[in-house]
């Protein structure tokens, strides 16, 4: 809760190569195995109805982040995800609010 308020680090990974068949729920469930997922933002293109193939996962703890980063490869329904530490945490601040709903 207070993470954003006090400007602490957000423990985020950036995930790309998400197959189109996977939606937020599946992604969230998958990353739940590494730690509590606080945020899961998988933007959909309202024009096409498909998502854009990448998403951000925010963990509540550093540990979750580390667990996720240590695992390789990340396979979800036969597709290999690309997972990397999210370097641009600053941008995340404003998009937080989108995260909870999608």
């Amino acid at each position: 809760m207070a993470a954003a308020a006090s400007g602490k680090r957000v423990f985020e990974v950036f995930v790309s190569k998400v197959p189109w068949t996977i939606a937020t729920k599946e992604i969230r469930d998958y990353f739940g195995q590494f730690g509590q997922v606080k945020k899961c933002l998988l933007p959909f293109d309202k024009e096409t109805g498909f998502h854009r193939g990448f998403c951000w996962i925010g963990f509540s703890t550093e540990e979750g982040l580390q667990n996720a980063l240590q695992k390789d490869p990340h396979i979800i329904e036969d597709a290999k995800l690309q997972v990397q530490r999210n370097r641009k945490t600053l941008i995340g601040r404003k998009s937080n609010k989108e995260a909870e709903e999608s």
Partner: protein
Amino acid sequence: MAALLRSVRLLKYSPTALLQVIGSSRHGLTASRLHSGAVGTKCVGFNGCQTVPRRFNVNSLFSYRSALPSASCRHYGVVPEQRGPFKDEPSLAVRSKQAQQFDWALAKLDSSVRRTGRVTKTLLLRIFHDICRTGYPSGNQALLLLRSCGSLLPEVPLAERTELAQRIWEKLQELGATYDVSHYNALLKTYLQNEFKFSPTDFLAKMEAANVLPNRVTYQRLIAAYCQDGDIEGASTILGFMKSKDLPITEAVFNSLVTGHARAGDINSAEGILSVMRGAGIEPGPDTYLSLLNVYAEKGDTDKVKQTLETVENADIHLMDRDLMQVIFSLTKAGHQQYVPEIVERMRHERGYVPDAMNLCLSLITQGHEDTAFSVLKSFTGLQVESQTSDSPDLGNFFLRHCVNMDKSVDKMAGFCKDLKDSGLHSTPLQFTLQCALDAKKTGMAVELMRRMKEGGLPVRPHYFWPLFTQHQKDKNIPGILETLRGMQELDIPADVETYTSYILSCFPSVDCARTALKEAGCDLNSDSLIAAELRSDASHGNLSGLLSLMSSSTLPAIDLSAFRASLLIGFRGFQDVELMAKITEILYKDSRFNRVDPENSENVPYFLYNLIDAMSETEVQSKEEKLREYFSLLKNMNISISGNIFRGIRNILESYHVPELIKDVLALVDRKENGMLTDGPLIKRVEVRMTFLEKTMEELKAEGKPADSTLKKIIAILCAEEKLDRALELKAQYEQDMTPASYAMLINLCCRHDNAEEALNLKRELARKDSEVALDAQKYVALVRVLSKHGKLEEAVDMLKEMKEKEVPLRDITINLLTLTMNAAAMKGDATTIRRLQQTIFTLGLAKPSSNLCSPLITCYLESGDYAGAYDAAVECHKQYNQIPKIHDLICALVEKGDAEMLQKVMEFLSQERGEMMMLYDLYFAFLQTGRYKEARKIIETPGLRARASRLQWFAEKCIASQLMEPLENMVDMTVKLFECDRDDMYHYLFRLCKETNDWRKAEAAWTKMQEENLIPRERTLRLLADILKSNNQEVPFEVPEVWFEEVKDQPDMFLEQEIKPSHMIQTSPSKKATASPLKEATVEDYKLRLLSLCKKGKVQEAYDILKKADRKGMVLGAAPYDALIKAFLASGNIEDAVAVKNIATNHIVGFNLSDMASNLLLITQVKRGQMKDALDVLKGMLQADQMPSQLAITRLVQGFGSEGNTKGIQEVESFVKSLGSIKLSSMLFVNNTALSHIKNGEFDSALEVLESVYTQNTENQNPSISFVFRKVLDANNDAALDKLSAMAERLCNHFASYRAATDLFLMYLDTGRAEEAKFLLQRCAAVAEQKDVMFAYMLRASQQPGKAAIIRTLAELVPDFAEKEAIYSYLFKCYGLDKDLGSAKALYEQMQAEGVKADELTLKRLALLYREAGETVPFKEPPETFRFYADKLKKQRSESVSPADD
């Protein structure tokens, strides 16, 4: 030098060896094939291509031989020799645009064909649309489109292709395109490729009616058409025609006859054609055999096919895979697909096999033979096909997609998918097929596919349906929505909250409507997802009362706030009804149904409050201050409380939004027990007095023994920004325990900036002791590396690099460039050890990949110290270790200059071994050119067998242009005349570009003459460039060329009018000449039109307007063109009001009247001139919406307008528009410079500096863009504050980044604006500016072409006294005096030259003599007798000789 020449001869390996190299290359083979293919068609060659103004390699489009259909495409490349000149072209401006568009369209199509061998229908239609929207398609545009309507469209059914060709034909004709024989031939070709049945006699009649004479190609194609139908009689008639006209009978004709006889059922005669050919002296070629193979294939006679293939092989004729594919196609079409596998096996899988085979598959699918296509597809196994990057196999994506597009049955597709999946060729074929069906919005097919997936145990999810919803949603198509919903129900996939919110509810006018419709459709109205979606809908629409009642309803299931938080934020931000808001907040706070996720945690609402404030912008919070206060106080009364943490978060936002007054209202919400602790803390801070306040706070905190880390950080940040290193260090020493890693990082960076390696290192170590985990960002690390290596602390620098690796700090291009700069600095000191060590560390750690840039400092280092052997060894070392050969050109040049033949020989051997002889020869060639050894250079480039390497030639040309080296470039252009495959127009274009740079119209004119000598037909871009150079020097342009009309608007509106109106006027007058003369009383609409246009042309705008009003009163409608002309005329004189009035009249008469592109552009420019920026932006938006093209000038003016009024956002907006346009060319600095100016205007100097600085710190070394414009503007505005900052920046760039362009620009701008003192001081501070000779000479050259600049050049010469090129400066000065007619100064200068012993060249004397004569005085010396041109040429020659060495 003789020795060097000898070495050159040695290097010129025996021609046979060289030819072997070339002969074995792939290109060599194909080229020779191309030539042999053209035997017998000697009257047609590739020369024809050159009449087409082309910019890109037209050949690929023309010569691409598509595999299909059976009609032979081998001569697709043949261009008919007759090409009509441009006739009745509407206006120059339109023509220029056409040329641009042609280039663009050609490039698009060309790249598509090159990559895939096909064009998509979408692309073709888009280009067609684009061409139509200009209104006046040109002949070559039409040709381009028509050519693309045949077998280049394998995905389109044959009939549809023909239809498209005819549509294009008619539409373009309607728009005024003139067709010549090439167009008719192109149309014929598409008919043949599309197997379209037409009557050749009718076709000929049509040509005759249009007064177009058929040529050999026409007849050939007509014969082919008869033969396709097996009509030998018809073919013979045409053949008779050809004979009577003495046209040669080519191989192509015989090939057609083979097909013709066979299709007529007479296979013996078909076979007999071969001997007939031989009798006529034409040896059957691959195409002949292909025709034969095809006819056997059509008969299903595989024995004959095999036999023929053997014959072909024995005759040493090479059939390509592509040819065999035609055989496959013939077999399949005739129903003999069982033989296809045999042919497939024979494929050699040559380069280009995959795209060809893909096209075969596509054509087969299109024409209903998907099973055969599938067997071809499976022959791809083992070949790398699409998406090599993907980890899982996905062969056949294109296949599946096309099946979907062609509406193949789901059964069949599922069968293909199963096969692909089972054979491991595709990991998710069904999912992919579904994706395609969804993309194509095929609901029925998609649902059916999903059913299969479900049956196969694959998951099916609600979001699979979203793509289907999107289209319905856009159309507000409720039945469509419901149908899709039914699909979901059928598959037992209930819609989830997202589906309801994003795709369903939003289509209905209200939630109630939605409920009714959904109920009818049989949906569960009480599902959680629907209710959550309703909550969201109400919330986001601001329907708070509805929301409140829904939320308070006892039947509502538990739904966590997170399910509708974002919508609620949207709804709340309006602050319509604070009371309702508070009530909703209370329910959220107290009703545990909304806190399902984490019931223990009571932060749900407080966090929501934080989000609310965070979601609002600064102005929003400021304007809603009262409402917020009210809201908070209501919450307080409801006993809603928040934690200190959340409070601090909100407080920080409020502070940064400058509404500290609200903080106390939020504070009131904090739990009482926590509240007490907080009030002592600093609640409200003012930015203005921040520093003093912070320092005070600091002391207070310290006195109270409280932690003060964040305050300290803020202070240090301010000190760093003010560059107060000492004070910052003092503070650090004082409050060491409060230092955070961020504070250290800032401080370290500051030390680096101040070149204080010792302190930087100390701080870094201290930081490491405190927290070994902390990592700096890449830029700071590199800054450390830089300063450490500079001060000889190499090991420490290496340690930093290692630490970066350990801590996984990623390097971006900017930081990598900084590393290059670091090593370059070492290179300048000759410190190779440091460079090697850094290089090695960087590469072995993998911080950056070895690049030519990163490797070059090492070579530079040796070159600088003149150690060429060392440089060579270093280059070899770099090549061995990192596969880079940087700076080799510089090394070779140095060796040539020095005449070190032995070393040169060594380098050449090395290069030829590593990069091949061809590359080595080019390297040597460029070195000779660069060093002025033209004789030697010529010997190299004339080496037999050498062919043009466009990229290498371009590399050198660009180098010459960038550093304004005319002589080497000119020589290169001269020497490459005979070079095989050299694009001559390109070469001249380089030359003109440099002429443009140096503004040398004489040179340009001479080059143009040379082009004529060479019989070259320049492309339009080349002509435009040349015309531009001539015009800007007030020279007459001796040819007709599409001018970019708006260039003239700014200076000479009258001229613009003349030019603009003339062509349309001519069109109008020619048919009815007498009408102009006839008096107005019996005037017809036509007369009014002409009168109006002629008045506009004469610039009598008001009179023209009167005519219009008169016509209007009589109820006459003059048509769009005259209205537009008058509007333009008004705009040209800056009269927006009347222009708008005319527009209104036009709109009244013509529905949907729109300003033409030009008028819109003009309107926009006029508005900018008047400062009506908002209107101007609206015009731009309107243009984009109307699909019009804004002109370069209009955009430039608009951006400048925004820049000068400080509207940064406006600039960004325009930039994003322009990016979306794509095809417009603008200076890369336009947006940068004006963004900077805009920031300056707003007093945001730091932002301005950031923008400008990044230009130099982030670019590679070669790019050296000018920011003179910014300096000029700031100087003109006398904005001293900005100037201080800018000049500090320029100096910083000099001193820290070794980037001198900015300072040089500033220096010259100082001079140019008469601020000699400032210029002098700047020079003292940045001595390196004096070395930027290229920039200075470029400046002087430009200056010497304007009157009144002599004084400036004088001052420049005084300030930079060590200019070695005294004569050059003096000659510029004479040029100036000549322009100014200043005989007195010229005399004085001449005396000075004599005193200094500087010899005046003949050109100077000539100029001086002219001055004397013009002043009526006698010339006191013997005037050189020849013309100016003569001496200019002579001078040039002398210079080149003085540079080239004397042969000993």
